[in-house]
């Protein structure tokens, strides 16, 4: 460990103050990190945390006023319970079945018919999860316990649908987003001048104060601009759609970021191995790089430990879903071994 470590993460690393902890909502302040770190957490929980969503709909009969495509789109957007999805479900593309099976999908059926004179409203609660499924119940949070409206039926109209829900990420389609919104703010007083407020006559009078302004000191009158200042406090508000609780979304996001970084370590070592043999003939390679190629240099043990151990747990970025648990413990050992490891 050199001096760099002392300056950087030697003190205590990222710190968190939670302002609100609710079932579908986490409001917290992240500090002692830089803008890129906070933004990467925001980006990963928005786009790369997997959930379950209806992806295929087999329409057996649909005599409602909604066309099949519209109905399928509506069904896709219904949040389904996805807690611990990584332990329960594979991605269909990594599964060795053809089509879909119970290891990579959850089947929901929707059967509804209107027989009376009164119109019938079909709600998300009417989706029936196949017996034995470990997850995939429609998320219902309203007081009447109905869930979102799927469609309405008039006398004689009926629906008979088989919906196949699959695991996916929001990079592919927004229906897999675990978060409805992630609020992200820093520097509520605009001391860093990252924002240029438009105004008629006076920006201060015309713009409302940020809700987070009370958490930071207001700037003094005629305070000189500090051009060395960097943002240090980030106000984040994670609002879920209900498929995952907010704390799990964050833990999953951290896990997938760490997986990305572990892949960087493994990938860089691989490039060193390739050029190591080619470049050593030129004689312009130093001992460090030789160490990577041969993976024998004792001082590289730490780095190799990361790469190797990690790969035991996560064979491919997408294939390790089922077996990630055991292997994933070691690479972050020492930190993950405490009370918070949660099995991954």
């Amino acid at each position, binding site marked *: 460990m050199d*001096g*760099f*470590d002392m*300056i*950087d*993460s030697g003190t*205590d*690393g*990222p710190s*968190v*103050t939670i302002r*609100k*902890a*609710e*079932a579908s909502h986490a409001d*917290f302040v992240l500090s002692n*990190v*830089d803008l*890129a*770190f906070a*933004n*990467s*957490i925001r*980006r*990963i929980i928005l786009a*790369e945390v997997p959930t379950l969503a209806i992806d295929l709909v087999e329409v057996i009969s649909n005599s409602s006023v909604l066309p099949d495509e519209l109905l399928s789109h509506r069904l896709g957007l219904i949040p389904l319970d996805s807690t611990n999805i990584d332990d329960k479900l594979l991605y269909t*593309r990594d599964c060795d079945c053809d089509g879909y099976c119970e290891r990579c999908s959850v089947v929901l059926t929707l059967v509804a018919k209107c027989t009376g004179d009164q119109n019938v409203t079909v709600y998300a609660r009417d989706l029936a999860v196949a017996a034995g499924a470990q997850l995939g119940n429609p998320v219902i*949070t309203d007081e009447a316990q109905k869930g979102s409206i799927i469609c309405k039926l008039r006398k004689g109209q009926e629906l008979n649908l088989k919906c196949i829900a699959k695991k996916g*990420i929001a*990079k*592919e*389609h927004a229906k897999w987003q675990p978060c409805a919104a992630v609020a992200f703010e820093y520097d509520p007083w605009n001391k860093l001048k990252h924002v240029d407020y438009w105004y008629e006559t006076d920006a201060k009078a015309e713009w409302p104060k940020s809700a987070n302004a009370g958490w930071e000191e207001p700037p003094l009158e005629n305070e000189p601009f500090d051009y060395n200042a960097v943002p240090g406090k980030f106000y984040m508000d994670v609002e879920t759609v209900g498929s995952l609780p907010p*704390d799990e979304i*964050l833990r999953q996001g*951290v896990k997938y*970021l*760490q997986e*990305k*970084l*572990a*892949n*960087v370590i493994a*990938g*860089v*070592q*691989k*490039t*060193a191995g390739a*050029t190591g043999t080619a*470049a050593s003939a030129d004689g312009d390679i*130093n001992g*460090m*790089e030789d160490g*990577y190629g041969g993976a024998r240099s004792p001082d590289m043990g730490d780095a190799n430990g*990361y790469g190797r151990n990690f790969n035991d747990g996560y064979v491919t970025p997408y294939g390790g879903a089922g077996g990630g648990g055991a292997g994933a413990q070691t690479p*972050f050992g020492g*930190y*993950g071994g*405490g009370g*918070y490891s949660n099995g991954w």
Partner: protein
Amino acid sequence: MNAPDRFELFIMQDGEEKITAVDETRVPNCVVFTFVKEDHTLGNLLRSQLLKDPKVVFAGYKVPHPLIPNFELRVQTTDETNPRAALIKASQDLIKDLTIFRNNFTREWELKKMIEPQKEGI
């Protein structure tokens, strides 16, 4: 109609390498890493972590084309180390920081839930 499949944003094609490195010959100790199927989430994170390292002379990333999900990370170091080692060190430090973040968050979350149990279940 002719839009590329959206899974091409993150699924590696057969034979594709996640990271390829090309040594920048005009400058000493400089490598340009090309990351395939990655975006600003990783690029900006690595860039900012590399810049904290006093042995890193230059670190920058760019996404050469917005429709192609790749980015290039250029790293130049002093001759005390080399770009590969610097990048590995940056990744390790970030993994540690993320673990600290996760543990701090989990601890704070459990404490907050204990204080305000009535808010559970919305």
